[in-house]
């Protein structure tokens, strides 16, 4: 939009190609990355998912065989289910907790630095370590459960990592611990960008604080929320190390996730074709989720 208005103001315009030449030159790294790496590698992956590549990528096509096998594999089905549960819970809780914390920190409180550092520090630790620490804390024999039992509540049972029905929530606890701090930080940066006059105006109008947040502030922070959303979603899709460190996918197959399936099939089973088929399905799922977003992005704008 701003391009057009600017163009009309300036009368001398060189050819289309050289218009915004500096911007185009500056975007060359991005264009190369997008086209060569992301599109290039994705196409490469998709093509190879139709082959019987084992240890090395090879172009011997076998049609949809890899996909047939994928969707008849119990482990993959369990993985997809887990990703859905983990993804939905993680998305909601990360956003809600992240926003509550950011809003609280934005209330001009004391010790803001201390609190922010406490909420953020888990992000400095790798998933491998996060998994290990939470594995201990959730250990029934010397972790949280035994601590509570020592206080006298001897029937207290909290052993998520060894219970196939709730193991994914055990992973969620660790995932939230590690990831919410960053989201809080991003939302806080967004809140800091909100004009003080807005707050002044709502105060004068006597709008309650929660309403101000819900109906004024959050809508204004849409771009920041999109950033947070993409960040969380990308993390969810790629969740791998945490599961490996905490449960190795167990008990049984109860906490398997798609990224782990891809990795294990590619490098442990040395069946690249199967791994590529699985990752292609992951890409398809991402597309399905992103379509509404892309539609809003383009569809909305083109019409006005």
């Amino acid at each position, binding site marked *: 939009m701003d391009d057009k208005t600017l163009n009309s103001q300036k009368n001398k315009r060189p050819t289309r190609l050289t218009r915004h030449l500096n911007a185009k030159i500056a975007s060359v790294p991005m264009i190369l990355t997008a086209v060569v790496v992301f599109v290039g590698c994705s196409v490469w992956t998709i093509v190879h998912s139709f082959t019987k590549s*084992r*240890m*090395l990528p090879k172009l011997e096509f076998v049609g949809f065989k890899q996909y047939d096998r994928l969707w008849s*594999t*119990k*482990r993959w089905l369990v993985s997809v289910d887990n990703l859905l549960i983990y993804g939905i819970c993680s998305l909601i809780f990360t956003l809600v907790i992240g926003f509550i914390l950011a809003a609280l920190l934005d209330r001009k409180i004391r010790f803001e630095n201390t609190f922010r550092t406490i909420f953020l520090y888990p992000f400095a630790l790798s998933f491998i370590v996060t998994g290990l620490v939470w*594995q201990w804390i959730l250990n*029934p024999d010397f972790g949280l459960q035994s601590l509570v039992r020592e206080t006298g509540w001897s029937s207290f049972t909290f052993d998520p990592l*060894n219970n*196939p029905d709730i193991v994914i929530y055990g992973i969620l606890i660790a995932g939230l611990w590690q990831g919410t701090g960053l989201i809080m930080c991003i939302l806080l940066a967004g809140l800091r960008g909100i004009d003080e006059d807005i707050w002044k105006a709502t105060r004068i109008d006597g709008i309650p604080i929660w309403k101000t947040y819900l109906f004024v502030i959050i809508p204004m922070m849409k771009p920041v929320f999109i950033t947070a959303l993409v960040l969380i979603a990308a993390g969810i899709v790629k969740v791998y190390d945490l599961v490996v460190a905490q*449960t*190795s*996918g*167990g*008990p*049984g*197959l*109860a906490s398997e996730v798609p990224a782990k399936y891809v*990795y*294990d*099939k*590619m*490098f*442990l*089973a*040395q*069946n690249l074709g*199967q791994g590529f088929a699985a990752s292609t399905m992951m890409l398809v799922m991402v597309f399905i989720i992103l379509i509404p977003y892309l539609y809003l992005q383009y569809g909305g704008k083109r019409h006005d």
Partner: protein
Amino acid sequence: MKITKNTLATLRNTCLGLSFAALTGSAQAVDLEVTHWWTSGGEAAAVAEFAKALNENTEHNWIDGAIAGSGGTARPIMISRILGGDPMAATQFNHGRQTEELIDAGLMLDLTDVAEAEGWKDVVNPTSLLDSCTYDGKIYCVPVNIHSWQWIWLSHQAYKDAGVDVPSNWDEFVAAAPALQKAGKVPLALGGQSWQSSGAFGVLAIAIAGMDAWSAVNVDKSAETAAGPEYKKVFEAAVAARELAKGSNVQDWNQATNLVITGKAGGQIMGDWAQGEFQVAGQVAGEDYTCLPGLGVNEVISTGGDAFYFPKLKDPAMESAQKELAALMMSKEVQVNFNLKKGSLPVRGDVNLEAANDCMKKGLEILAGGNILPDVNQVFSSDTADQINDLMVEFWASDDVSAEDAQNRYAEIIADAD
């Protein structure tokens, strides 16, 4: 063991000979980068024997590229490096079928001339180890040790606490289980990772179905046998074992071994590497723990193990250095020093392991008697092995999978196996 100047010189003359120097006409000192996943105390000490041998016996330098996390982490690194055109000089691999494609693609160095000059064919025992390194009649890797899966480790403490005798075979083990459970112990310790479930099943299969049925399924890939009555018994036994393993609640194999060491569990089915854990804990075989090969039923050794491969490099000076290293790894002294530290059996039949402990000696006897079986890595492709892992980890962890169900799915995997 000290290497004197004298043995050093003999070693150099006998092992390395002049043939490799002659190949290139130069003995230029180079750095050899070696990747491997041996990072625990004993393993690192074993690798240090290789490094020492290379640094002391040649002008070359050992550059250590240790990556923890076993094959799953190291493999993509190695293959990326080879694809990236900048490979390491040597790399660890489980020998077997994993590397066939790399050889096919012409990325691996042919070691046949070293093997012939050193007479590997005559010294490697069992010869199947060298067969695993052979592809199209050429030799591409150096087997360095033998690890066997076929053991169960029993805690004397646990059985004493339960007031029963330490079992001497699988049937007695199952019979003694209720007493252990009454004493608040887990009869069978089993870690949660899939390769452990799968390994334990393999050991049960040999003990219960017998060697013939095992070979039919694993070597000849007979789906019929896999669906047949012998294997039915195996799956039924596994269902019983699954009950015994309830309450282990550990992930890593050594945590499971620790349950046996501390007497919290009766026993664990695990390969001979578990021995190192007992040693570190200061336990003595026969006094504090008992090891039964083949579950005390069929005394066999499976001949898995590790091997080193040498990616093709452009520089001829590097190639001759690689071959020197290959020859060194197989030499008598290095084999003895390495395997004593590693706790594995040497690949040469002509060395003397006096320092070996009781369990290791049992293993050596069985090996000498020729009661050997190939390892999973040698009979199945990684893909098939991984599918079996997936099935087994689900089966062992969940009562929902019946013996019949599991057997049917197992037979399907065997039918598709390659």
